[in-house]
């Protein structure tokens, strides 16, 4: 019998060392029945794109608290595209100023979440992005 699970890569690009949020989200997605590949701290965009390829994920979730999201996110999206994975949905969580939110969405980021976002919203958005 064929069985497809939503596979999500949860990664922390860049140099900030706070992974509490990423772990909470990873755990919440697990409890929603998804398979979450957790890569740990201080990943380069290249490492993230490579892991996304090898793991053939449907979704990449990035946790960025350093403020470098406007540099990291486009680079990761570009590498995914080069690897033939432009269909992979990208979600970002972290400290994201409002003015960047729209620019990230314009770049093709599916969801952006700031402090206090509920895991239920994230799960709902991931599932609905997969249903498209």
């Amino acid at each position, binding site marked *: *019998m*064929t*069985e*497809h*699970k939503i*596979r999500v890569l949860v990664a922390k690009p860049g140099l900030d060392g706070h992974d509490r949020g990423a772990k909470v989200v*990873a*755990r919440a*997605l*697990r*409890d*929603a*029945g*998804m*398979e*979450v*590949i*957790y*890569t*740990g701290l201080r*990943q380069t965009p*290249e*490492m993230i794109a*490579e*892991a996304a*390829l*090898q*793991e*053939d994920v449907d979704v990449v979730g990035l946790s960025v608290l350093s403020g470098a999201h406007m540099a990291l996110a486009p680079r990761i999206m570009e590498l995914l595209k080069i*690897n*033939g*994975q432009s269909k992979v949905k990208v979600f970002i969580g972290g400290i994201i100023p409002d003015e960047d939110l729209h620019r990230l969405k314009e770049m093709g980021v599916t969801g952006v979440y700031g402090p206090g976002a509920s895991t239920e919203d994230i799960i709902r958005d991931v599932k609905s992005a997969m249903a498209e």
Partner: protein
Amino acid sequence: MTYAQSVLNGDRLALARLLTQVENNAPEGRSALIELFPSTGKAHLIGVTGAPGTGKSSLVNQLAMHYRKVEDKRIAIVAVDPSSPFTGGAVLGDRVRMRDLSGDPKVFIRSMATRGSLGGLAQSTAGMVQVFDAAGFDIVIIETVGAGQSEVDVARLAHTTLVVEAPGLGDDIQAIKAGILEIADILVVNKADRPGVENTEKALKSMLDLAHPTERVFQHHGSTMRTTAPAQPASSALMWIPPIQRTVSTEGKGIVELTEAIARHVVYLRQSGDWAVRERTHLEVELEALIRETLVNRFMENIPQGMYEDVLEKVIQRNVSPWEAMKILMKEK
């Protein structure tokens, strides 16, 4: 071009997608496995198992680094972590310890969840290993879930099984129990910089001595006593006694010695004919599992709609025993 052809041509994205199809038991995956099968049977399959937290992932990271840097081999890693029995979800975290391997095009790491299997691997692990084998990886390392005592499936799949222990996990009673220690081709005492490493090694050694007695002289109440090794049957001229290797994988200590032991095991497997025996066992196990799965599916398709649920309900009400229910469903008298 089919998935299988792209994989044989070295297309990494096709490889990743095919692994998903195989993992999901999709029709494309099954037909690709048929197409790829003639290209399999070349890779050395190394199983790595042991209790949670003994350092399996870090050890795999070190082994893979060694094989890349010193021997220039192409390495695939299949890392299995458990699925939640309640939600079916999983957090697969083995990559966290394998970041040193990132960026090397001759390494391919794939994480997978057990999806309900209990033997330490997932149902489709063998299929995924075949894909890597066909894709031309020289070594496929299979890391099991953190194993307790009876997750021994990996020994039926791998050519060489490493069982990873760490100091302080159990006494010598644990070492004489049946199960995971019996499947070891090589015993690894990882975290060997921790206190208690001598005790762990001693317990493992005494377990091995019980399995493979050797001649020795010892003092007993002041007098010298001697035991003789039992006469060995001629066929065991080539006998493999699992070596015990100490490692500290966070520092890379003992890794060279471990890879030497693995190389000796390969020589032994080839010379003794054990390699062929193991291949035979694992293909037989795979065939049997496929037959079982197909028969169950075919049976379930052929019983009238609702009959299974009706009979199950009677069992749940305790009106019929599971044995009787089986007979009803199989239409036996």
